[in-house]
């Protein structure tokens, strides 16, 4: 294709609705630097049923590291607004399981207008006590007879906490975004944000304790850019 034709085609892609061909992606990993605190296992004595479900010690979820100090449960999302664009929320709910007396997943990203669905597979009483600020808070008892309960979360909001009062070690975090460009790092500490229209974006990495890191990335059509984040205290030089 001649350069002129190529640039016309590119222009059409940029001006038109976000076409798959022009979509880029950002991938990367999140790494912890510095001394890892010594954690004591969670004390589940308050509920023998929870203790029975967890014969192996369960470590606090405030800092979860995989191999090579990769950080789990870091939320990565695009901060930059998308003027003139609206993204419909998925019809499927964002699901959080109460399983083994912990919330799975520990950190969830969802879209404004999507349903947040809690499932109780534990056969014990949990309560879902959500503490958002922009959205309406709620506190729903989930005895063993109530296997699932959902609420639609309407407004974008920075990560808020969900807790169980019956089992005080249970904490989850939910962030509500107005677009689908977010991811949460899994066991290998990596993330991938796909289908990004070409452009320059500010990306934020959020951790429940260690705060946030920001970085800027420019994604061209069909580009895959790598963006790594580091949390923690760097070693002394």
């Amino acid at each position, binding site marked *: 294709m001649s350069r002129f034709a190529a640039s016309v085609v590119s222009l059409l892609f940029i001006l038109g609705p976000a076409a798959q061909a022009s979509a880029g992606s950002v991938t990367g990993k999140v790494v912890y630097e510095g001394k890892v605190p010594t954690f004591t296992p969670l004390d589940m*004595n*308050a509920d023998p049923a929870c203790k029975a479900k967890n014969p192996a010690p369960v470590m606090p979820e405030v800092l979860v590291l995989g191999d090579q100090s990769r950080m789990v449960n870091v939320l990565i999302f695009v901060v930059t607004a998308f003027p003139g664009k609206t993204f419909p929320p998925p019809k499927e709910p964002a699901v959080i399981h109460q399983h083994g007396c912990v919330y799975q997943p520990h950190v969830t990203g969802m879209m404004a207008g999507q349903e947040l669905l809690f499932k109780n597979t534990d056969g*014990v*009483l949990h309560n879902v006590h959500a503490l958002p600020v922009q959205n309406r808070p709620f506190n*729903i*008892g989930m005895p*063993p*007879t109530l296997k699932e*309960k959902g609420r639609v979360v309407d407004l974008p909001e920075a990560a808020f906490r969900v807790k169980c009062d019956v089992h005080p070690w249970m904490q989850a975090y939910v962030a509500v975004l107005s677009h689908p460009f977010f991811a949460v790092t899994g066991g290998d500490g990596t993330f991938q944000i796909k289908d990004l229209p070409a452009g320059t974006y500010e990306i934020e990495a959020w951790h429940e304790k260690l705060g946030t890191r920001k970085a800027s990335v420019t994604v061209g059509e069909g580009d895959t850019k790598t963006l790594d984040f580091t949390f923690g205290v760097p070693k002394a030089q």
Partner: protein
Amino acid sequence: MPKFKMAVACGAMALLAADGMAENGAAARGKKAYGRYCVSCHGVDGDGRGYEAQHLDPTPRNFTKGAFKWRTTPSGQIPRDEDLLRTIRNGLYATAMPPWGALSDQDLKDLIAYVKTFSPRFAKEAPDPAITIPPQPPNNASSIAAGKETYQTVQCGQCHGDGGRGDGPSASTLKDEWGQPIKAHDFTVGNLKCGNAPEDVYRVFMTGLNGTPMPSFTDSVTPDEAWHLVHYVLSLRQKH
């Protein structure tokens, strides 16, 4: 003709003036009453940190989150005006909140208009209508027995204890939404904070207590089951 028109105009103006006064004046008047009656516990900023608060347990309500225990609205919602009026008028058992029913109706309305200015939620949200409380079935032995079964199925004992003494396995770790330790209620003694009437207890099961660990069970118990639970819980109260 002219007299009639004048009368209509005066009437309309009076109404408009009254409305304007109600909107602009109520919170301002309420602020004066608040400064006289409420500030020593609830604080100048409505955050429950008045001078008296250091001596009180439970501590005075922090109005700034819009989280109120006594409501007729579903879990998480702000209270309706009549809920706030009732709390101020009747007080709350087992707390230092006295009944202020001796104040005039106008004073009470002005007070709640001012209290509502402490949280932005009252400007942003509209509360649902009051929840429907279905007719209460007879309070008899079989209802109490059914309630005891529901108490066990729902596992209320986790916090409230098997005997309802507030000594369940999770009781010692309970914290309110401000991070302060809070007790699960001991049903065997004393008055219930939000009222001892069966409807009051029913309402607490179905709407929860905002700001506290007590959730709403409206999704997991039927109205009849809730009533049986009410009868069981009230049966635990020892009469002195």
